[in-house]
């Protein structure tokens, strides 16, 4: 139950990474609104299905618009919202299962279109809401409820996938650092094209990777997270590829190509040659 709505019967587990992502998204939206002077209602949050998608109901303070649709289809819903109303700030919130498994087919087309929206992906390497099945980012060999003898597929590397598909802004973040994460998200919102902020957001119940990510000196565990250095050139695809190949989980902007026009700009360019005709005008061509 939430404070604003006593009927709402969903809640994240204590310590869930998604709390931090929610905070980061709130920061990013508020900071952006302060800069632009636009109301919170200018934001539309399109949510996938799963623990992460429930974020849309758990936002605190002024409420943005939201759509909690169907599993895997947050991207094409966002396509509809954005192309209907390009002046809106459209954000997708989804998990690794929703975005990369059932919804995987939609990433490539949005990248090719350079759809001007921001996808915030909460990657916990597991299906949480259905209680612990393996996901595309679950590691090879890991035993989950749906892989009783260990996972037999390779773990995919989402950042590499995004880069290959031509996503024009790719950032990698960590839910345990809401402030820095909010800056990555806000930069994604300002990016004129398709931006994905892929966040490590551990599941404390089924796949608790906090220690692995942050490390634990007392136990001699080295952190897998590492900061993308300041001298990284995110406009270079080759440099981005190096960052992704370095292993571990980079935190920062991996790739940022601002040279391509966004879909709505390309559509606007078409208006010079294309012309929306009235029904009256169109009908005249069939008269005899």
């Amino acid at each position, binding site marked *: 139950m939430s404070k604003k709505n006593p009927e709402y019967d969903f809640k994240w587990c204590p310590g869930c990474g998604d709390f931090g992502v929610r905070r980061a998204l709130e920061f990013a939206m508020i900071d952006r609104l302060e800069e632009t002077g636009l109301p919170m209602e200018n934001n539309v949050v399109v949510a996938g299905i799963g623990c992460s998608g429930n974020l849309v*109901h758990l936002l605190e303070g002024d409420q943005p618009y939201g*759509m909690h649709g169907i599993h895997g289809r947050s991207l094409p*819903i966002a396509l*509809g*919202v954005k192309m209907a109303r390009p002046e809106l700030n459209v954000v997708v919130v989804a998990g690794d299962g929703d975005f990369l498994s059932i919804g995987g087919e939609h990433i490539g087309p949005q990248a090719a279109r350079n759809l001007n929206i921001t996808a915030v992906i909460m990657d916990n390497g597991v299906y949480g809401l259905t209680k612990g099945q393996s996901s595309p980012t679950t590691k090879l060999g890991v035993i989950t409820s749906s892989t009783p003898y260990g996972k037999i597929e390779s773990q995919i590397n989402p950042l590499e996938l995004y880069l290959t598909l031509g996503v024009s802004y790719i950032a990698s973040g960590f839910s345990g650092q809401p402030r820095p994460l909010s800056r990555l998200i806000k930069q994604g919102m300002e990016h004129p094209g398709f931006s994905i902020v892929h966040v490590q957001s551990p599941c404390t119940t089924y796949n608790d990777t906090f220690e692995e990510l942050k490390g634990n000196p007392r136990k001699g565990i080295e952190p897998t997270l590492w900061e993308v250095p300041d001298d990284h050139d995110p406009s270079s695809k080759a440099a981005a590829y190096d960052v992704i190949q370095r292993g571990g989980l980079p935190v920062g902007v991996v790739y940022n190509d601002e040279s391509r026009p966004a879909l709505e700009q390309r559509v606007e360019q078409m208006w010079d040659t294309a*012309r929306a005709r009235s029904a009256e005008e*169109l009908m005249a061509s069939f*008269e005899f």
Partner: protein
Amino acid sequence: MQMRDFVVRFAGEGGQGVVTSAEGLAQSSTQVGYHALTFATFPSQILGGPTWTQARISVDPVQAPGDDVDVLVAFNREAYDNHYAEVREDGVVIFNSTEFDLEGDSRAFGLPVEELARSTGNNRAANMVIMGALAHLVNMPHEYLEEFVERRFSRGREGDDEIIRSNLQALRLGREHIALSGFNLGELAPSKMPEYQQLMIKGNEALSLGAIAGGLDFYVGYPISPATPILLYMERNLIGKDRFAYQVSSEIESITAILGAGYAGKRAMTATAGPGVSLMSEGLGLSWVAEIPLVVVDVQRGGPATGLPTKTEQSDLMSCMFPAHGDVRVPVIAVGTVEECFYGAVKAIEWAEKYQGPVILMSEMALAERAQNIPKPDLSKVKPAQRWVYEGNNGYQRYAGYELSPMPLPGGPGAYVANGSEHDDIGDTTHLPERHIQMTQRRFGKIKLLEEEYYEREGAEHSVAILPWGGSKGPAQEAYDILKRQGAPVSWYYTMYLNPLPPKLLEELKQKDLVIVPELNYQGQFSSILRAAGVKAESITQYTGLPFKARTLVERISEMTNFRLTEAVGV
């Protein structure tokens, strides 16, 4: 013998001008005051393949392709072999003798189409050679086609005169040549140009126009026969400021993109065929549950699966009315004529806004590709659909109560979550029993807002009724007219509103002893739905990929009603 109509079938190889000839004949006939419609089937391939199109030319308005072929124009041997059996006994076969030779068919006459065209100095006048021959066969006055040629090619360009001269010569050559055969079909009654302004238009084009007139401002689609022409039409004519048309990457993207657009305030539509409807299932459920206006057009073809992509069928009614899992019954409009393609689309956009949910507009292959003259719709009577927009403050309860409520628009006040999970007043997820009861009743209750008054009705005193739906309306209307002339005690009912049915119509139908439903599917889908509503309905089914013949319907209706036909039925 005076004729009121005749049917010419053009058959040949794709690319031989089969379609152009039929449409040309239809067009030229309408321009001199006849009524005309074409019926096309295509091979499901890009180049070549056997194909045929027929044109029915009539003194009176007609809505069906015609039962019999009066004239077959065979462009090659295979076309002759495939179609000669359908030419009526005293009909005529014109075969292209430049292409092949034919002996032993007393109805056949060879016309060296290409040679004759070449002799006029204009190879492209081949159509006019055929047209001249056809006009002769039905004793159509020369001036009709000559006027047509002069009007068509007087374009104010240099060379018009030469083109007109060669085409007139082609007409004459065709006429003179066929005269050698001694064949004659009779005399087509003189035409009478209607006093109203007309359009010559195909079903898919009329549907696209209707949607635009109805206020459509967002269209996406994915190529699929026979709905693709709607996508192409929108991409050519809808793109502009505040209006959007776009090809997406699948039917799943189509439905979800128009969900997003509908939510964001647009009058949004997509068009597809059966396979696409299957893929849109989940999205249609979301539209129903989250109360988001949108229109899905299903231009039906033969199914299931890939089925018969270029043939006609009416077998998607169940999947359109009940497209999704869960408690869903989507409003359905099924158009039955090219003219209704226009008005059905206007109505579909209106309905979606009126009750805030999905509407399915059903068309079918035979209508989609049919070119026909229709009265020009009066746009002053068509009002673009308007959304009921929320204009209050934040903190709005979008889903409170059992009634339709105004929709907030993103960017404006009243932010809420449009939720596909069962939800409470503000759109947050809840699974409380009382909420599911309330929201389910709310969703079904809203359908009442779409109940229409109007339906077609004739001879209502009879206890047996004919009630076709969709494109079977045309042949059923012809069958009904024949039966009526013969004194059969049957009544006629028709509506394009299949869900909800006009309530008064349903009341009337319930009083009947038998309601006969001609429909192109195996199971009798509409009669099943009617029986569930308490109507004693029985179907006449056909599943050949082709439309009904009026004659078939006359015979079967007579059997079902024990009505003895007094004479051989001719149409």
